[in-house]
């Protein structure tokens, strides 16, 4: 064999093999980037998508420019169906996409929303937030670089792509992890696991507390609410600057926006009350409502919503493998999310959740505790269940 023949053999061999591998990865599309071929039993289920969603989701948003978008962490990603009729109008061929990202902190959510405003032109957005967490403004440079730069070559010609493609083909019998519109199923198919996860989550929450937290010292405390005396807020505090900035951008872009404080299961909400954080949520909601009103004085574009309370969906029993609406203490399924969306966009029943305006926060808080008192009186088992959770944590610590 001379050098010429050797070179031809090597080049043809390498290019043929690379082309075959790239073609295979392109066809299987394990990261759900191309979205052209979907064959049941071959590549319709995408078990590898969740590992790469942070790379792929921004690209989908940029390419498909959906009219409705959902932002937030896994709570939003699991709980909100972007194809819900309140968000997308099928008669107008509108597209919706869930841009929620598992594990995303506020900084990432803020930058994702800014990215979407820059690259798509949404008409309606839902943004989930955790009351009490800082909603700061950050420099999005690093996030944008990550979102804008998708090494497309690596989607076709990389060890990861090949491995993911093979896993995808072999994993077609698995339950899907996401919908094509980006909604996350998480573990909703593992009904018998909910109770274990719920307890583990609850323990994690308690584990983060100091040993002298009231709920750990006095597990049966009924948590009488302390007085609510919020400070008079005029300016925007630094830890809400990101929200303020984002709301401003949404208002200027004329986007119908719903900011929703993630509801948690009533047992987990009870922990906040018993452990001494009862007013944090209300302080936070008040600050958020003030910041939003400052930017959108007439409330024309942006509304803040809160659903924490004692609706049957939020007190669903977590036992006997019967749980349908929750996956743990905080992740609610889209059946709950559907009701939230209905209500926020004027299609749902009155009395479920409330629109939060600065002036009504004290009243909302009073109503919450009235509902709580009524609920506890009519459900004596609830506090025993709660005390049991605390107790089991104290014994296994």
């Amino acid at each position, binding site marked *: *064999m*001379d*050098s*010429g*023949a*050797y*070179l031809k*053999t*090597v080049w043809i*061999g*390498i290019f043929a*093999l*690379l082309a075959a*591998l790239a073609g295979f990865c392109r066809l299987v599309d394990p990261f759900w980037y191309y979205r052209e071929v979907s064959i049941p039993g071959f590549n319709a289920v995408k078990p590898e998508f969740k590992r790469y969603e942070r790379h792929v989701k921004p690209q989908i948003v940029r390419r498909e420019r959906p009219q409705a978008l959902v932002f937030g962490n896994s709570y939003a990603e699991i709980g909100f169906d972007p194809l819900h009729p309140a968000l997308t109008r099928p008669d107008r061929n509108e597209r919706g996409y869930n841009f929620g990202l598992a594990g995303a902190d506020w900084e990432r959510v803020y930058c994702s929303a800014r990215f979407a405003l820059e690259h798509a032109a949404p008409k309606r957005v839902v943004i989930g937030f955790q009351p009490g967490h800082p909603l700061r403004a950050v420099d999005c440079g690093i996030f944008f670089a990550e979102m804008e730069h998708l*090494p497309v*070559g*690596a989607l076709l*010609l*990389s*060890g*990861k*792509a*090949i491995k993911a493609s093979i896993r995808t083909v072999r994993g077609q019998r698995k339950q899907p992890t996401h919908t094509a519109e980006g909604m996350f199923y998480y573990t909703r198919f593992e009904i018998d696991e909910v109770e274990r996860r719920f307890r583990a989550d609850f323990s994690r929450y308690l584990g983060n507390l100091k040993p002298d937290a009231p709920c750990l010292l006095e597990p049966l405390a009924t948590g009488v609410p302390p007085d609510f005396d919020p400070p008079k807020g005029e300016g925007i505090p630094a830890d809400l600057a990101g929200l303020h900035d984002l709301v401003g951008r949404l208002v200027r872009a004329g986007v119908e926006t719903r900011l929703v404080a993630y509801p948690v299961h009533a047992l987990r909400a009870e922990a906040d009350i018993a452990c001494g954080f009862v007013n944090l949520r209300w302080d936070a909601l008040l600050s958020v409502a003030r910041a939003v009103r400052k930017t959108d004085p007439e409330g024309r574009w942006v509304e803040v919503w809160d659903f924490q309370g004692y609706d049957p969906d939020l007190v669903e029993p977590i036992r006997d493998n019967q749980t349908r609406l929750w996956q743990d203490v905080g992740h609610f399924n889209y059946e709950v999310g559907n009701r939230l969306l209905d209500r926020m966009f004027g299609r749902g029943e009155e009395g479920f959740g409330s629109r939060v305006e600065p002036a009504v926060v004290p009243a909302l808080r009073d109503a919450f505790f009235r509902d709580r008192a009524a609920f506890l009186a009519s459900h004596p088992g609830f506090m025993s269940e709660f005390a049991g959770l605390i107790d089991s944590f104290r014994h296994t610590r």
Partner: protein
Amino acid sequence: MLFNSYEFLFLYLPAVLAGFHGLVRYRRDFAIAWLGLASLFFYGWWNPAYVLLLLASIGFNFLAGRRISLMPERSGARKGLLAGAIAADLALLGYYKYANFFVRAVNDLAGTHWGLEEIVLPLGISFFTFTQIAFLVDAYRGRAREYRFAPYLLFVTYFPHLIAGPILHHGEMMPQFSKDQGGRIADDFAAGFTLFLFGLFKKTVLADGIAPHAQQLFTAAQSQPPMFLESWIGALAYTFQLYFDFSGYSDMAIGLSLLFGIRLPINFDSPYKAADIADFWRRWHMTLSRFLRDYLYIPLGGNRCPAWRHSLNLFLTMLLGGFWHGANWTYLAWGALHGAYLVINHDWRVLRVRLGFGADPVSRPARWAGRLLTFLAVVFGWVLFRADSLATAGNILRGMLGLNGLALPAGLKHGPLGERLAAEGWTFSESPLLHGAGPALWIAALLLVSMGMPNTNEIFARFRPSLNMARGVPPEARFWQWRPAPAWALLSVVVGVAAVCSISELSEFIYFQF
């Protein structure tokens, strides 16, 4: 642009090769100019603004070198111009690479608060500065004359070596630029392309494969002292990461250059097989060692001076060599450590001779002991080289010496043996470095490759891919030496596909910031 990037492999390289080989048929000067422009484009891909800096440096040194060549020998003006030009080069390097370091050092020592905005380090500035200083000195010594700008431009910017070496001598490149050296194009192409694939494989599969284990240790050690096993696994992981990364880059550079019919000097010759520390420096980053020897150590007086002065020359050469790598106390410490190693090694050899043993050990066990000691000394040095601070390095070095305690992998905990060990008071660690056998297997495999197998220069020696030969080349052909044959073609296809598929995420070469 990185060698291990899709745009380089599938767009830039084919276009440059096609242009070069198309033009060289008509006139070699055109092809050289094309290669020079392509090299500037290669550099500008990172940041176009810095092409101007590179061109300014090249223009200045070209004119200075030319002027030096034309001045009468031994004139004061000639010496003055040389000193001024080198000072200007060092000032440029000093500003971009060391200014922040010196300001921080002064602030730390004097308690001042001087500020200097962060300066972006131009890619490869250390390499193109050293290359040109060597040219100026050679011009002064009458060993280099260059009156044409295009070949000089290519000599400095030649893209295979521009970013991370090898550091070239004017005398070894210019003859190759000016006329075809008569090698068979097909042979050069076949050998160069295969060598490039092997280098790419070393970088993307081996170095990048083991890199996360090194990263884990050096990141964790910033905040907490690692224990014995983690320290050794992480330090060894970095030892092999650095070698396969940099020697892979050098193989790629030599292979790429061969595609243009131009041979570069070899840069690595199985350094971890070194019998002593001086031998290590004859095998590791050989073109840097050569530069430091010719342009620093010998001008300082080399070994033709009293023993104490010779030791000082060795130490200073390595200290400055360390500092050349980066503006951090860790590099200075690394250079000082290797300076001390060399001084001890030299004194030991002198002592052996005085005692009548001969400078080098003869028995096999003694030679192996020397190899092992050298390797361990180098591993300790790499900890300083890689750590972000002396404190982090101290944490790891203490761990390697067992001063931070010993914990066993948590995986051993379950089972009768684990229970017995736990009962005896052994502790277990959840460190990712001790999760499973992965890191240890990686290290064992790379140890075998770097110490027990021929290196790429030996494998390709029959086709003379570089300017100089590796030392382990047997006089007769061996089965493991590369030649155009079906079995090698098959291996090259596998290696090439694995290398390309491992590019995945673009990772920078470790030597990029030097």
